[in-house]
């Protein structure tokens, strides 16, 4: 089930608002498409991100993919666990597999994103 407490991008990232932070990860569909994740390049804390722009890289056995910022903001923290054990993203993409958080993010950018129902429809339309 796609969780309905967050929003999704067309490039398969999710963003969940938790107080003054925006938590970011990739969707279950994205981790399944990538296959076994072998490497995560985390962004630097303090770096300013722009909506839709690449901010870090995930590699699987077969390929490397950019992770785009779902909303503009400043990197507040990164998940070191996924750096040492990238497979966490495969196992728990919506929970322990979060990648980074943003602060001072643009709330207006959230309006352009999909809710879980629209995202599921988007994924099936892509297939």
């Amino acid at each position, binding site marked *: 089930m796609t969780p309905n407490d967050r929003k999704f991008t067309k490039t398969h990232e999710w963003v969940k608002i938790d107080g003054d932070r925006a938590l970011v990860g990739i969707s279950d569909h994205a981790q399944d498409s990538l*296959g*076994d994740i*072998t*490497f995560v390049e985390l962004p630097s804390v303090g770096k300013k991100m722009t909506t839709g722009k690449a901010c870090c890289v995930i*590699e699987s*056995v*077969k*390929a*490397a993919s950019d992770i785009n910022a779902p909303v503009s903001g400043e990197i507040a923290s990164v998940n070191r666990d996924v750096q040492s054990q990238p497979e966490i993203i*495969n196992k728990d993409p919506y929970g322990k597999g979060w990648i980074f958080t943003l602060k001072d993010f643009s709330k207006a950018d959230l309006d352009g994103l999909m809710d879980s129902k629209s995202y599921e429809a988007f994924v099936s339309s892509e297939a």
Partner: protein
Amino acid sequence: MKKTFFYDTHIALGAKMAPFGGYDMPIQYDGIVKEHFYARQGAALFDTCHMGEFRFEGKNARADLDHVLSCKVSSIKPGQCKYGFICNPHGGVIDDQIIYRLADDAFFMVVNASTKDHDFEWIVSNISSGTKAINLSAETAKIDIQGPRCAKIVKKLLEKPVDGLAYYSFMLNAYRNKELLISRTGYTGEIGFEIFCDKEQALAFWNDSMELGAKPAGLGARDTLRLEMGYPLYGHELGENRNAAESGFARAIASDKEFIGSTTVCSASAVTHMLSGVILDDRRAARAGDAVVDENDGETGLITSGSFSPSLGRAVALAYIRKDLCVTGARVCVRTGRNKLAGLISDLPFYKQATARKRLSEYL
């Protein structure tokens, strides 16, 4: 796009499919890393029906094949097989193949999927008219069963014992009351077999061996397994514009006979780069097409394959590197589209615990 005899099986198993060599092939079922370890530690099943098989017969067949292949066909005894290249007149590689000697004057050849039709035309146009050439690819089914636990499964399923089968040898065996050919060869580095049979036998063997514990593995794992062994993949390490000798597979190239392309293949000045292993310092992979560079960012080589290595826990790659720089242990840099990765030149294979050459009796 073409489908193998196993297409419906792959779909039923939930495989992720993708085009390879003109066929819709399974890339993975349970995940590449899991399937990789089925082959390293258990028994993995690969659908290799997409590959090509030819038969050559006649009193000139041996001499004809010695003319077309880089390896020494005359030294192969019936019951043995040998790896070698089909070269073009410039010493480039039209394909890599395994040649099986069925009898003094009869041979069986296994080639890659994407190249098989061109291979067959090329060979037929370069052998004597008295040698009978048959393209068996369409009706031949092929399964690779690989891994330390596969020997017991094969022994249980086939009618004749396989105990005496040495590495790179083959035998005619039987299964479900029909003959088949089985060789102790493969593309994983592990104890394993390649089985050539008909469609019905292949489908039944697949199911029977799964019931005995074998697990399907896709082309994703096939690639990481062969990469850890340093085995070349046609179109990556081998191609028409790359001198066969640069691949470093000396045993596949006979220096004491003439064959198509031998003048260039055996010319030292034509060899400027050598295929080398590169172990990256981290998990981040170099990929085919990335440049190998020196400290001044000057290009010294080209990555032809690269991936995270599940067995080593870090990334490895194969690269053609300028011959004078191919020193084991030397530091190298790889320039990817995104950044630079550090690594060192390594001996091959990367994975040194593979079982392919071990005695079969240890695994029965």
